């Protein structure tokens, strides 16, 4: 391993590997403190390197491959910075957990995210990518409910398919270019392999119509797992899109579709955590749109929004997690009247709710407005308008509907509430303060942006336009008035139609309905011919195989007498063990077969692409 660097760097994934090992092996009294400590160390490294201009590279030569484990530049630093910060808050929020395997999974998950953010080549990226996919599936399964097992399985299936598209793209790209370098792509000359890689990234960014895994699975994750997942999967995808695909026009349009799609579904939704999940789709839409429009200002806006979003969305999921932890449900129709009993949860939740809604003095205001202004100033008027509509819907659902029906709406609640551990409050307080501080002092965040407003830094990509037009001042008097007016009159709309907006217990069909349909069609397609071949094979076996086997058995028994018993016994034991393993694999669950078959088929297809 060689470090080609003048400045200091230590890979933060190492801290999370230590954390994972500690959570698995050490007693709870130690590892519950070890995990936040590791996150703090990771954050200190990020603070140290964000002082420099980046430029560090950490090369690992392995199996004849040149892997760059640490490309450190302004784009990777801003994402790693907020990842580390949120890791601290998430670890504090999870300190009361008695299930150590949840800690192991979340540590592995965050380590994977850091691997991705610093990856300079596609192989390192792919390893981090798959690590995140597996670990996050565990964060769903560890809730240990029947619904979460099923949802986790659907989640894993979608991410496996996305990962395979990414892998196919990486292999094809290697065949065409002879390297694994993870670099910006010319948006006017996208090749088939670029589209495949983009498809893999788009699955994790929850780009409509590939988004349905997110609102399907996140509400089924563990209370603390959902807090971690809300921060890392989609934002890692935003990072890789910004790295490779800035300026790809279609992302601008798809991003705004995401903004609106998420908001529309959240308006109809009843489960608090599913409302928040749909708002991840919506908020990531702002980032994807900013990347697709591809001016320096909108890419800056996307990064700033990712930073702000991780803070307030983590806090929102912490608040909804408190409801689930205390009341045992996150369904709004079963909650209500909780302001008397959980006033601090309400207050801290509201800090995040006004942040996501873009209320001045909170961090959503300084990031969302940058993307919208950038879109409007580069004459993407319709896209900017779509984002304004989504901003209204955001306040309507997350800012008013969710808290109103959870904390008010009914007389003071008498329902049984589990006590909320103090560490959960501490993490939420930290999140709320950070939302406010970054909102009040935007330069804390703006100084980390990939295209700085002051001073010259070489652009990480040649495909971003309007490089010198990045100056942005959110706190102009008109902007503040506009934001408050928009929120105030959205509130009036809610007040007039609060009876219409009352949530109902129902599941709203989204694109997962099509996924399930495709899955069923696929299994039908596979099982019918398979059954036919099986039928023929049984016939052949009965007529030819059995007599042959009998003949063979006679010969074998003759040989057995002469053979050394020990050898045969050993072989028999091995066969028996293999049989047991195979029996364990054959669970008889159709879903498992479909998944294995799909994974195998796509793996073979990927190999064929690679070879051909």
């Amino acid at each position, binding site marked *: 391993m060689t470090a080609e660097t003048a400045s200091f760097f230590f890979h933060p994934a190492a801290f999370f590997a230590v954390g994972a090992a500690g959570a698995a092996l050490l007693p709870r009294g130690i590892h519950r403190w070890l995990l936040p400590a590791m996150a703090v160390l990771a954050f200190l490294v990020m603070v140290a390197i964000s002082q420099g201009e980046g430029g560090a590279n950490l090369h690992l030569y392995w199996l004849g491959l040149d892997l760059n484990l640490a490309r450190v530049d302004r784009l990777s630093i801003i994402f790693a910075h907020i990842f580390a910060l949120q890791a601290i808050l998430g670890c504090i929020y999870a300190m009361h957990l008695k299930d150590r395997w949840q800690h192991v999974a979340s540590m592995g998950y965050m380590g994977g995210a850091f691997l991705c953010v610093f990856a300079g080549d596609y192989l390192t990226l792919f390893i981090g990518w798959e690590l995140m996919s597996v670990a996050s599936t565990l964060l769903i399964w560890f809730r240990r409910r*029947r*619904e979460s097992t*099923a*949802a986790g399985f*659907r989640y894993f299936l979608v991410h496996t398919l996305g990962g395979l598209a990414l892998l196919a793209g990486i292999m094809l790209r290697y065949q065409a270019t002879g390297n694994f370098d993870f670099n910006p792509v010319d948006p006017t000359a996208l090749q088939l392999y670029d589209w495949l890689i983009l498809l893999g990234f788009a699955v994790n960014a929850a780009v409509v119509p590939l988004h349905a895994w997110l609102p*399907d699975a996140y509400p089924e994750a563990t209370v603390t797992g959902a807090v971690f997942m809300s921060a890392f999967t989609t934002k890692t995808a935003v990072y890789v899109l910004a790295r490779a695909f800035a300026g790809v026009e279609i992302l601008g349009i798809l991003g705004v579709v995401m903004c609106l799609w998420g*908001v*529309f579904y959240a*308006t*109809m939704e009843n489960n608090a955590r599913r409302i928040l999940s749909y708002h991840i789709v919506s908020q990531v839409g702002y980032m994807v749109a900013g990347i697709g429009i591809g001016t320096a200002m909108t890419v800056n806006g996307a990064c700033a929004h990712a930073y702000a979003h991780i803070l307030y969305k983590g806090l929102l999921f912490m608040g909804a997690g408190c409801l689930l932890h205390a009341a045992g449900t996150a369904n709004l129709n079963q909650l209500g009247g909780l*302001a*008397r*009993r959980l*006033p*601090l949860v309400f*207050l801290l939740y509201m800090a995040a709710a006004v942040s996501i809604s873009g209320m001045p003095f909170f961090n959503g205001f300084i990031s969302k407005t940058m993307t*919208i*202004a950038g879109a*409007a*100033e580069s004459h993407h*008027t319709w896209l*900017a*308008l779509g984002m*304004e*509509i989504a901003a*209204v*819907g955001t306040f*309507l659902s997350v800012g008013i509907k969710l808290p109103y029906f959870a*904390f*008010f709406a009914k007389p*003071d609640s008498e329902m049984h509430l589990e006590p909320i551990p*103090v560490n959960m409050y501490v993490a939420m307080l930290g999140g709320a303060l950070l939302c406010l501080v970054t909102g009040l002092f935007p330069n804390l965040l703006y100084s980390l942006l990939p295209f700085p407003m002051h001073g010259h830094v070489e652009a990480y990509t040649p495909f971003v336009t309007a490089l010198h037009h990045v100056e942005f001042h959110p706190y*102009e*008097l*008109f902007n503040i*008035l*506009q934001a*408050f*007016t*928009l*929120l*105030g*009159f*959205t*509130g*009036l*709309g*809610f*007040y*007039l*139609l609060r009876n*219409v*907006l009352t949530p*109902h*217990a*129902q*599941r*709203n*069909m989204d694109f*997962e309905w099509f996924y399930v349909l495709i899955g069923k069609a696929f299994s039908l397609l596979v099982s019918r011919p398979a059954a036919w071949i099986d039928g023929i094979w049984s016939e052949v076996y009965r007529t030819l195989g059995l007599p042959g086997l009998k003949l063979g058995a006679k010969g074998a028994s003759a040989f057995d007498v002469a053979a050394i018993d020990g050898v045969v016994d050993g072989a028999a034991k091995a066969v028996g063990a293999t049989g047991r393993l195979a029996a364990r694999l054959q669970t008889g669950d159709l879903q498992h077969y479909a998944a294995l078959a799909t994974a195998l088929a796509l793996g073979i297809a990927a190999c064929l692409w690679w070879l051909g």
Partner: protein
Amino acid sequence: MAWDEMQNSLGSWFARQRTKAALWKRAFFVALGVLMAGSFVLKPAHPHFGYDSLPGFWAVFGLGVAVIMALVLKQFVAKCIGRREDYYDR
């Protein structure tokens, strides 16, 4: 414990405010009036859509979008795509 006391007094403060709903409602409408008046005074330096330099544009926009979204989505779309909650778990 000081922590519980703090939570409790904050909680009862919220409970008291719920009895003063009429007062909060009046304050809300006054605030909306002030914002509306403000839009006659302040103009955007760089209007994004043209119409947004008109006074009251963002008030109409916010109210209009909220009302249309609520009516179309909850009254129509939700009734078309709604299924049982355990639709995928049966």
